[in-house]
């Protein structure tokens, strides 16, 4: 094979190979050996070959096997992509530290504290790390190169070089990993902890890994090459007419961009200074995240041991916060309407399914009770109906606020947020008042049992609902309607003068936001098996808003992360501090005793809200634009600091200045 030559890298690519293969091998090995990668694989192999006994059933093992294959395959492809996409400008050590902070820290934290708590802590640690790094960079007087300095137009030959480099990356990653794994297995075998069959499979694996690495690395290389600048456009200057560029080559378009905008564009192009952040790498992250989330119920016992069903139940709860935050993001983030009463629509959605899905409706109508199975089947159309009912109320409550903006709008929506729950509370004969509704039916799906002790169906239900919500949000944002929202947020007068009907656009934003909270409400009452009116306070509206703001106003991934982070910090972490502190092996135990020594009767529960507030304040101080800000928002916030450079032509005069007035007077 001619590939042998390609796999022995030339000098310049050797540094890149070492940089990325070592950089990614460390976290992958920690996952495999320290955590549970190897354990999952061995269980899968033993179980599926029938050679040994595992405590897991076949469907579980098949799912675990799919995850394992997807995981290692996308890691190898990722290495290929990174090797091909890296411009080689950034140092090796710097990258390794970054990788350690962003992969090892969360893994070790999740391993010791549980997934959600670990990640919630990371959401605090990472921004702090950014700040420290920025300080260090400043202290070193480092000035980054111009963002598009390395941008080259690559011809076919150079592209082929990139692909073969990527293949080498995948190959070496697979080879080194395979050999290390084999050595580890040999040690286990000699110590007698490994059955002979597994050793044979380990040898097979050692052969497969480099071969698979070669092809997957190539795949990563192809992904990278797609993000290079096309050669044909600039080869003969401006004669080329490309599709919508109208005679302007892509390279030319990039060259004339301002520095701040060029930095944004350079993020995704190859060669790239920071390939880990490029959109190509994000593709692989997305595959990893989707695989992880999809197979999570199966992986959980491997990764975290006991308590799977409790954890899944709480993730099901975190899920509807994600939907609520995404819905509120439409109103606040896209359309710029500050809504402090968002909980009102959640109430409406909850009671929609609460009344119809329980015996309440037939009771009100004086009819014979319906068959619960029939009611359960009604859940599916009712999710849509609850969403539409909430959207209808969104329009109804939005209509009186049309002329209001900013703080005035906030106050009125705050009023609605108070009124609606009280109305439902007082409608005794329909809602049972303060007692709430009990006996709300769960959804029905052929072959699935829904109950509180089996949280898996709810987990997949909320996953599907979240997926639908994200899909709808992305599509709406990128459509004509989304553009109108954003334009309206930027400048109402200009938007109206450009043909945007302010009334309809605002009402549609309210309706769309309420629609998703209706979905969340229907899910919530079904999962809880009832509706309890104490969950609908003003405080909830504020929490939803905090999720949006902390995540990054107007940014869909940001809002998802924000919802999960706020939920984890508030519900899973702070609410559990006392439980954790009662375990004498936990460091919190010592901390608790130390404080209790000075403050008698101290418990973490007493200061929970204080801690929550402090965390929120700290995040907002250090990351005012949110955890994952949208590009627009980042610009808005930093523009005031003089980051965005406004070009003033030498002869340009801005209105309002003395020169301008002079010019006007002369005429």
């Amino acid at each position, binding site marked *: 094979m001619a590939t042998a030559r390609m796999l022995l890298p030339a000098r310049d690519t050797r540094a890149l190979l070492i940089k990325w293969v070592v950089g990614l091998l460390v976290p992958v090995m920690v996952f495999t050996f320290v955590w549970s990668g190897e354990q999952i694989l061995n269980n899968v192999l033993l179980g599926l070959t029938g050679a040994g006994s595992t405590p897991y059933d076949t469907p579980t093992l098949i799912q675990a096997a799919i995850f394992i294959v997807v995981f290692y395959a996308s890691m190898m492809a990722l290495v290929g992509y990174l090797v091909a996409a890296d411009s080689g400008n950034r140092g090796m050590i710097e990258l390794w530290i970054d990788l350690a902070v962003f992969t090892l820290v969360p893994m070790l934290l999740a391993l010791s504290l549980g997934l959600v708590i670990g990640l919630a802590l990371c959401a605090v640690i990472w921004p702090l790390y950014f700040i420290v790094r920025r300080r260090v960079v400043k202290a070193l007087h480092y000035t980054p190169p111009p963002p598009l300095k390395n941008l080259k137009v690559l011809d076919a030959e150079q592209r082929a070089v990139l692909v073969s480099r990527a293949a080498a990356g995948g190959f070496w990653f697979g080879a080194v990993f395979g050999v290390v794994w084999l050595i580890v297995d040999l040690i286990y075998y000699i110590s007698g902890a490994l059955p002979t069959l597994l050793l044979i499979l380990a040898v097979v694996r050692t052969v497969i890994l480099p071969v698979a690495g070669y092809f997957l690395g190539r795949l990563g290389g192809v992904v990278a090459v797609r993000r290079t600048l096309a050669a044909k456009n600039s080869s003969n200057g401006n004669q080329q007419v490309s599709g*919508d*560029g*109208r*005679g*302007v080559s892509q390279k*030319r*378009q990039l060259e*004339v*961009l*301002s520095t*701040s*905008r060029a930095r944004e*564009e350079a993020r995704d192009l190859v060669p790239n200074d920071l390939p880990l952040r490029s959109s190509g790498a994000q593709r692989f992250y997305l595959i990893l995240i989707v695989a992880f989330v999809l197979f999570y119920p199966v992986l959980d016992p491997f990764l975290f041991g006991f308590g799977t069903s409790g954890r899944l139940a709480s993730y099901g709860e975190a899920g509807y916060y994600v939907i609520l935050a995404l819905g509120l993001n439409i109103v606040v983030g896209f359309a710029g309407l500050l809504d402090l009463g968002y909980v009102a629509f959640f109430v409406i959605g909850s009671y929609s399914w609460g009344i119809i899905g329980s015996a309440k409706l037939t009771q009100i109508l004086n009819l014979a009770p319906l068959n619960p199975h029939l009611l359960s089947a009604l859940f599916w159309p009712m999710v849509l109906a609850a969403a539409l009912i909430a959207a209808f109320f969104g329009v109804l409550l939005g209509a009186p606020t049309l002329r209001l903006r900013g703080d005035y709008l906030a106050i009125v929506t705050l009023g609605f947020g108070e009124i609606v729950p009280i109305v439902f509370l007082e409608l005794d004969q329909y809602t049972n008042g303060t007692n709430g509704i009990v006996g709300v039916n769960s959804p029905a799906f052929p072959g699935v049992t829904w109950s509180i002790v089996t949280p898996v169906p709810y987990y997949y239900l909320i996953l599907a609902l979240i997926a639908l919500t994200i*899909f*709808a949000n992305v*599509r*709406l944002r990128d*459509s*004509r*309607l*989304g*553009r*109108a929202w*954003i*334009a309206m947020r*930027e*400048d109402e*007068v*200009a*938007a*109206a*003068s*450009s*043909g*945007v*009907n*302010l*009334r309809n656009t605002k009402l*549609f934003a309210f309706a769309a936001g309420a629609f998703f909270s209706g979905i969340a409400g229907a899910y919530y009452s079904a999962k809880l098996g009832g509706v309890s009116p104490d969950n609908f306070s003003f405080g909830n509206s504020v929490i939803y808003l905090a999720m949006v703001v902390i995540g990054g106003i107007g940014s869909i991934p940001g809002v998802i992360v924000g919802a999960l982070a706020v939920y984890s910090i508030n519900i899973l972490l702070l609410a559990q501090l006392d439980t954790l502190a009662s375990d004498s092996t936990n460091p919190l135990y010592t901390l608790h005793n130390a404080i209790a020594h000075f403050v008698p009767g101290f418990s973490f529960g007493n200061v929970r809200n204080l801690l929550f507030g402090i965390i929120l304040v700290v995040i907002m101080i250090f990351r005012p634009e949110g955890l994952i800000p949208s590009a*627009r928002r980042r*610009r*808005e916030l930093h*523009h005031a600091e003089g980051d*965005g*450079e*406004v*070009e*003033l*032509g030498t*002869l*340009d*005069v*801005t*209105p309002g200045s003395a020169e*301008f007035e002079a*010019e*006007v007077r002369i*005429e």
Partner: protein
Amino acid sequence: MSLEEAQHAGEPLLKLDSVGKYFGGLAAVQDLDLEVRSKEIVSIIGPNGAGKTTVFNLITGIYRPTTGDIRFDARSISGLTPDRVLRRGIARTFQNIRLFNNMTVLENVLVGEHTLLKAGVLGSLFRPPNVVREEAEARKRAIELLSFFGTELVERQDEYVINLSYAARRRVEVARALASEPKLLLLDEPTAGMNEVETLEAVKYVRRLRDELNLTILLIEHKLTVTMGISDRISVLDYGRKIAEGLPEEVRHDEKVIAAYLGTPATRAERKSVD
């Protein structure tokens, strides 16, 4: 065609009929009659605070006239909201450029095309082929509009407008107004803050807008050299009233205009003594 000819002969494209606007007791515009015929370039001039921009705001529905009636294309448009007015075929630019600063050049023009696009909620969600096509055509049209002003804006279509020079931003604003395919274009001081070269270029494109795109143009302009050069007719406002109207030559020599613009001989002497 015949309708257009009928208009040419009969009612003008835009007709303000004794329009007045009062803010409390203050009369911003009083008893104003104004006519703009198809394919004309008409200028409104006048000293600062004469009510020129108020007239634009009245025409485009940002303000509702207190008295009188505004007719466009033989139908009344007074009291319509700005987006309705735009749908009837009147687009505008603003004196202190109102672009969507954190959107790109291309996105700004696409917002301008809002009324031409049809995608609704379901279309946006499921993106059937016709919506995909519509969006692609919208982009193509936007780039064509930008290329009306040369290659600079096409090259910089992905730039946030806040990073553009002042003159370039003005052009984007005009492109956004053109995107709705209007019949009448209102330009509020299209050369404000520009140097001589840029002013000349702006004058050229205003003419081209009429000649190549068959637009009717009503503009507010401070620079008399500009207005005298491109206008078919000029109306002069002072203190919210029309004090003169006519061909550039007539207006230039009108006593009242000279007094309003340059001051009466008395005030001119006063200014000189201050200098």
